[in-house]
Structure formats: structure tokens, C-alpha cells
């Protein structure tokens, strides 16, 4: 799932016919790009048009998964700042770009500087919150998000930021409530934004084991913004949870026809593996590893998935830990902490793994995989009772998660041991 910054770019640039969902119709971002370019043709020194263009290009990257738009966005921002140095929205567009590229530390620094210049700009608070959250500073992120709410009660970006934080704290229903409110406020013509929010909601439902609700939302999302890669990916996850592996394969084949990412290769590999097609799965795992490996030193990487891959699938725990060290050096959000703990566990460093997973769990996130990892780490440390509780929590939260079979086996094993004793 792309970062929140993408959806904090709500702008309307002109009419999108009701038939926007048709293939031939330009997307909302394309309309914004065209509108900005039209202005620039007439007024080549209009810096705001370059800012609009940059934001539209970042939006287009979200619509298509084509990251080459980032470079074009950077060029537009440079043009804007050349015409009007230090213009506020040029800076804002740059922060949006940095967040989209997962460069959280510089994004936070630049966003804070803009925040000092214009404290009542709501979006900047949202960018600050997102960067703080990604870097693991959830307390500060909460304060920043609250500022968004206080400045403009009920504003849409605040709902989205709040939903992400609530999800992080394990308040899934609260996150859904905010996303639902955001959805109500999203203008119907903003088809991609609508689909993005629906996909986020579907993800939350799936993570809570409600695959039916997720299914319905994704169906709607794909009608709203056809062949949206994020919705296709999420629907494939739903199909995996429903054990409808052939459909998951089909969905991922469709998704990977354009701008496949390391994450989408990995998901496709899982789908093929479950569908009993090991050869294709192996090819895709290799593709994932190759792609993800080339990005390990970049900010926009797939390191968390790569750690998990090396720790579990490829049986290369040392490589998992090397990458985990790299990642934990730059951010401490719940998923990085979890991945680090899992890499430590894979290398037999159970005490340190226990400390790291505790930090991850302290945030409050309710996620079946996270609980399962906690269970395995506790079990390895000989804490059977705690381990069992985590396995059960994982199953209670989502009985159809990707780790549900393993969690069930662990619980059964524990029961047998107890009976034997």
C-alpha cells in the first residue's frame, strides 16, 4: 500500500465526465496534469502551475505505480522554485514527493520548516504526522494529526491521517469510521481517491478476518477506478485468505502487466505457490529478490518484505539481519521493529528479538502476523503461556491470515505438550 501522502493530494483540476471509469477517459491526475500544462503554455512563469503539475505527477504515480513520474515532478518543483524561490507550495510539493519516495527524515525536516512558516496549513500537519509516524514517533504524530482536526473539524486529510494512526494503534473499527467519513466527503468525480479509500477499508476488513466485506468494497473500488493495481493487489490478498488461489493468480497476473513492483512480485509468487505452481512461484520469488535487492539502499525500498523473505523463504537469516540493521537505522515504525525482531529471531537472538517485538507491540497495532511473530519469539524464549496467548490473538483477529495455519499448528502443539505434561 502506497503511503498516505499520495492521498493527501486532493485537488480538482476540471471536469471529469461521469464516464471517467471508462478506459478512454483521462484519469483525475491526467486531467490535473493537462490543466497545469495548459496554464504553463499561456503563462510559463506561473510557479503555482508548476506546483500543481508536480502534485499531479505524484498523483499519477499513485494511479499507475509508475515511479518515473517522480523525476518529472522533481523537475516541475525545481522550475517552480527557480521562478519564485521558497514559494510555500513549491516546498509543500517537495515534501509530498519526499514522502511518496519514503524519504521520511528529510520530509519531516522540510515539513516542519513549512509548518513554522504557515502553521494553519492543514496538509503540512498531515505531512508532519505521516513522517513522524513512519519514523516511529507515534506520540508526536498523534499531536500533529490532532492539530489537523482542530484547525478544520472534519477535514478529509485529517480523517485519512487519523485513520492511519488508529490502524497503527490497533483501533481497526475507529480507522474504518474515519475512512468511511473520508469516503463520504470525497467528491464522486475523484475516482481514484475513492478507490484508494475503499481499498484501504478493504485491507482493514481483511486484516480483521472479514473477507466478505473486503470483497464488496474492492468490487466497488474496481468499478470506480477499473484495473486499479492497489485494488487488484488487495483483492488477490482476499482471494488467498479465501483459499481461492487460482483467482489470486489471475488477479496478480493482471496486476503485474504494468509497472510491477517488488511487493507485487512477492504477492504473485505467494499466489502461485498456493495454487500449486512452484515453478512460476520460484521465478517470481527470484524476480522479487532481484528487484528488492537493488533497492535496499534506497529510501523507496521493499526491505521489510525482503527481510521476511530471507528469514523465512530463502533461509538466509544473516542477510535478513543485515538488511534489518540497515532499515532500523533509518526508521522505527511498528513494521520495521517487527521485521527487525523477526530477523533477530531467525538468527537465534531471542532476547533481543523479544525486546524489539515488545516495542512493536507497545504501539498497539493489531495484526495477525505481528502477533504470530511475537508468539514464535516468546516460544523460542521458552515462554509457552505468553506464546500461546499471542498465537490465539493472531487467530482471533484473523482466522484466515497468511499465518493462521502456522498459528493453529502452534496452538495445537502447545495443547499436546500441556496434555503430555
Amino acid at each position, binding site marked *: 500500500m502506497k503511503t498516505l501522502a499520495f492521498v493527501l*493530494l*486532493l*485537488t*480538482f*483540476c476540471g*471536469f471529469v465526465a461521469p464516464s471517467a471509469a471508462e478506459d478512454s477517459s483521462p484519469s483525475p491526475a491526467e486531467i490535473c496534469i493537462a490543466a497545469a500544462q495548459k496554464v504553463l503554455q499561456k503563462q510559463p512563469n506561473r510557479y*503555482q502551475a508548476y*506546483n*500543481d503539475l508536480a*502534485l499531479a505527477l505524484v498523483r499519477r504515480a499513485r494511479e499507475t505505480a509508475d515511479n518515473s513520474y517522480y523525476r518529472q515532478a522533481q523537475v516541475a518543483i525545481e522550475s517552480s522554485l527557480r521562478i519564485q524561490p521558497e514559494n*510555500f*507550495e513549491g516546498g*509543500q*510539493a517537495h515534501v509530498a514527493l519526499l514522502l511518496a519516495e519514503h524519504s521520511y527524515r528529510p520530509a519531516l525536516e522540510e515539513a516542519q520548516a513549512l509548518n513554522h512558516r*504557515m502553521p494553519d*496549513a*492543514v*496538509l*503540512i500537519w498531515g505531512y508532519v504526522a505521516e513522517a513522524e509516524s513512519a519514523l516511529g514517533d507515534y506520540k508526536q504524530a*498523534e499531536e500533529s*494529526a*490532532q492539530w489537523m*482536526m*482542530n*484547525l*478544520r*473539524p*472534519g*477535514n*478529509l*486529510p*485529517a480523517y485519512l*491521517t487519523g485513520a492511519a*494512526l*488508529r490502524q497503527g*494503534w*490497533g*483501533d*481497526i*473499527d*475507529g480507522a474504518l469510521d*474515519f475512512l468511511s*467519513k*473520508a469516503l*463520504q*466527503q*470525497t*467528491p464522486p468525480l*475523484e475516482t481514484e481517491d475513492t478507490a484508494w479509500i475503499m481499498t484501504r477499508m478493504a485491507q482493514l476488513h481483511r486484516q480483521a478476518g472479514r473477507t466478505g466485506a473486503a470483497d464488496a468494497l474492492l468490487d466497488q473500488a474496481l468499478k470506480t477506478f477499473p484495473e486499479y493495481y492497489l485494488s487488484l493487489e488487495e483483492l488477490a490478498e482476499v482471494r488467498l485468505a479465501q483459499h481461492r488461489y487460482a483467482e489470486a493468480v489471475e488477479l496478480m497476473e493482471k496486476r503485474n502487466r504494468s509497472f510491477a513492483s517488488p511487493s507485487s512480485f512477492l504477492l504473485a509468487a505467494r499466489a502461485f505457490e498456493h495454487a500449486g505452481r512452484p515453478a512460476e512461484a520460484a521465478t517470481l520469488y527470484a524476480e522479487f529478490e532481484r528487484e528488492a535487492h537493488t533497492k535496499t539502499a534506497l529510501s523507496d525500498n521493499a526491505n521489510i518484505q525482503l527481510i521476511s523473505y530471507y528469514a523465512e523463504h530463502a533461509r538466509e537469516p544473516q542477510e535478513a539481519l543485515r538488511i534489518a540493521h540497515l532499515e532500523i537505522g533509518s526508521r522505527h515504525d511498528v513494521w520495521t521493529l517487527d521485521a527487525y525482531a523477526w530477523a533477530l529471531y531467525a538468527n537465534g537472538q531471542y532476547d533481543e528479538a523479544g525486546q524489539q517485538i*515488545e516495542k512493536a*507491540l*507497545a*504501539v*498497539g497495532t493489531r495484526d495477525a502476523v505481528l*502477533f504470530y511473530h*511475537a508468539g514464535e519469539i516468546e516460544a523460542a524464549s521458552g515462554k509457552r503461556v*505468553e506464546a500461546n*496467548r*499471542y498465537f490465539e*490473538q493472531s487467530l482471533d483477529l484473523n482466522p484466515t491470515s497468511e499465518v493462521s495455519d502456522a498459528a493453529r499448528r502452534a496452538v495445537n502443539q502447545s495443547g499436546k505438550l500441556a496434555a503430555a505434561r
Partner: protein
Amino acid sequence: MGTVGRPNEAVKVTFPSTRIKKSASMLVSAVLTTCAVGAGQNSTDASIRSLQTHLRMYPQDFKAYDQLGASYIQKGRETADASYYEMAKQALDKSLDLISNDPAAASAKTHMAVVAMAEHQFEDALSWAQAALALGSGDPSPWAIVGDALTDLGEYERADEAYARLRDPLDLDDDSNPLAYERNSRMAYLHFLRGDAPGAIKLMRAAIGVAMTLRLPVENVAWSQFQLGEICFKSGDLTSAEQAYTAGLALDPHSYRNLAGLGEVRTAQGNYPEAIALYQKAIAVVPFPAYAAALYDLDLQVGRTDDARQQLELVQFIGKLNPINERLFYRELALFYADHNLKLEESVELAKKELEVRHDIYTWDILAWVLFKNGRVPEAAEVMEKALALGTGDALLDFHAGMIEFQLGRSERARALFKHALTLNPDFHLVYANQARERLGQLADSDTRPASSSSSAAHDLRPGESLP
């Protein structure tokens, strides 16, 4: 591990106790709202001066530029001087140059939409209002302008949908908040257009009730009373119309719309001196061509031909004062020319220009009427069907349609239309009400007589006298 497994935490990101600002919502009702001159004018001038001073000191204050834009809009409404809208645009452009992609910019974009509506740039108004909504500021009031623009574009079902979104998402019981006022007052108009005058009156009365309870600005309430008066007048209920206009004037004695509305009632009652005085008062506040046109007809009716000549000049002068005025009054000028058999070819051009930007039933009606007056009767009949498509209970529409049908020799339909017009309001127009009766008489007398064989007969069907 103390935090693990705890139940869902209490909501951490909370709402403050404040709700959507009333002022923000009220911005939208300003689209169709006028305000009094006098004290209001002074305060608007003072506001403009103060904001200009502030901006000299703080040129980066985007909110102040937005407020300055809003003040110019207010000034434009007070004076009907369209050049203030251009000044508003400049100020709002400055605001949006400083910040345009943040929910904080929703207000400036909404004001841009208001300016576009005031300048009859309905597509632009729609775009700006949608742009304001896309920023997700949490204020649903731009939906009002979306609905208004769609109404003028003739997209009534989409306008319904837009107005239905005029609800405060944080206030479940919102039947008594400013958004309820905005929603009901606008939905009332759509009900009226669809021929449901009782429903329209009920909604407008509910809106006025909310406005009074919330102590909304007098110009908003006075505007609503005017709307109520219009619906009552068109429904033939002159007593209720008079009450509404009088109530509007009690709130705001300078409400030119209510002055003119009451003038229309007095005309229908045959009280021409008072009608003339009321229209003169309205013109003294804002010299709208429609008021000068009504005064022209009244002056002719009482034999004041010199005064009538002045009104004739006034209508044309205001209508072409500047390019913006020209655009604003395409429809009024077209109607005036057609009604008085003046510049008939130009009246078609004007109606067609209006149709380029506006596709509501009244624009179709005027196009049909000017085509009819130009002798293009079959074409007029085709266009008139679009004007009648919603089943609007407006006697003038029926009269126009009746005249076209009469000219085409379709007696049954003509008779039904004239009857319906007179049933709706027996005194719907100073001249046309009598003409409708005359035509009905002719139809009764000579059902067998063929329709006029002259294609120029439309020119003989002059509703009002024209000056030599």
C-alpha cells in the same frame, strides 16, 4: 508486554467541540443573496480599506486576500457594479497564489465559484466549487454552488444530488442548522420548477424558519422572503406573495428584489401608481434592466410616454454598460426586445448567447419566445417543449407556449395552455394576462377559423406597446 491484547483503545484523534463555522456555510448562500445598501455599504467599504491596509503590512496573508475578495463580492452585490467581481478575482488569485492545495484554500476557491456564478460563468462556477470540495476542508457548503451551477446548466437531477449533500457530517440532527437553510431554500426552487409549488412553499417556509431561529443575516432572510413571494405570486396567491415581500422589506427596507416583487403584486392588483413608486425605489437601489422594463410597461399603461422613453434608454444602457453587464443581462435584454418588438434579430442573438452558458428552462423559454417573435414559429415550438419539460407551474411559460401553439393553429393545446396560465395566476402579467383572455375568447368564438396564414403574424401579437 503490558499493551498487548488490550481492547481497542479509546479514540485518540478526536474532534474539538466546534462545528463547521456558520460563516463558512453562509458564504454559499451569498450566491443568490443580496444585501442592503446604506449601513452595509459603509461597513463593506470599511472592511475593504482595513484589509487593504493589513495586506500592505502582511502581504503573505492568504486569508486576508481571501477576505478582501469576499468583501469585493459583497460590494458587487450591494452596488450591482460588476467591476467589483473582477477586483474580487484579483484578490482571490493572490490568495490562491500563496496557498491553493490545502483545505485552507477551500474558502478562496469557494469565493471564486461565487464570483463565477455572479458573472454567469456557470461551468467555471461548477469547476471552482468542485475544486473547493476536492480539498476536503470538511465544509460541505460548496455543494450549494455545485447545485446552483447545475441548476443553471439545466442538470436538475444532478443538482438534486448536490443539494442532498448539503449536510453537516458532524451533526446528525441538522434540520435546524445553516446547511438546512441552504438546502431547503435551494430545494424549494427545484420543487417549484417541477411544478410542485406547495412543496416549494413548504420548504421555503421551513428555510425561513431556520434562518429566523439562527438569526442569520437579514439579507439572507430577506432574499428567502423574496423567493417565497415569487413562488406564491406565480401560484396566483397574491396575498401570500404580498405578505412575503412585505416581511422581506420589514427586515431589509432596501431589499430591491422585495421592492420589485411588491411592485409586481401592486401591478397585478391594478394599483399602478404604487407599483411605479416601488419599481422606482428598486431602481434607485440597483438599476436592473428587468425593473426598468417593468417600469416602462407601467409608464406606458398610465400614459407617461416621456418617462417610458427614459426607462427604455435605461434598460439598454445598463444592459451594455460593460462586457460583464452585457453577459449578465443577455436574457433580460432579449426578453425586453422581444416583448416590445425592438431589435428582434438581436434578441435572437442575445438568447443564443445566453444558451451558450445557461441551459435552464427559462433560457429555453426566452429562446422560444424570441424565435416566435421573429416569425420562426415551428422552431419556437420545438424549443418551447424544452422549457415545459419539467412541468413548471409558471403562467408566463404557459402563455408563451400558448401563443406559439395558437400561431400554429393548434387550438386545443393553445386553449389548454392559456387556461392553465390564467388558472395559475389570473393577473400574471400587466399585458399578457389580458392577451391570454382575448385569445381564449377568440378560440371560443371561432374554433373553426383557420390559424393566421401570415408568417409575420407573430409581430402582430405585441404584448406591450412600443414607443414610436
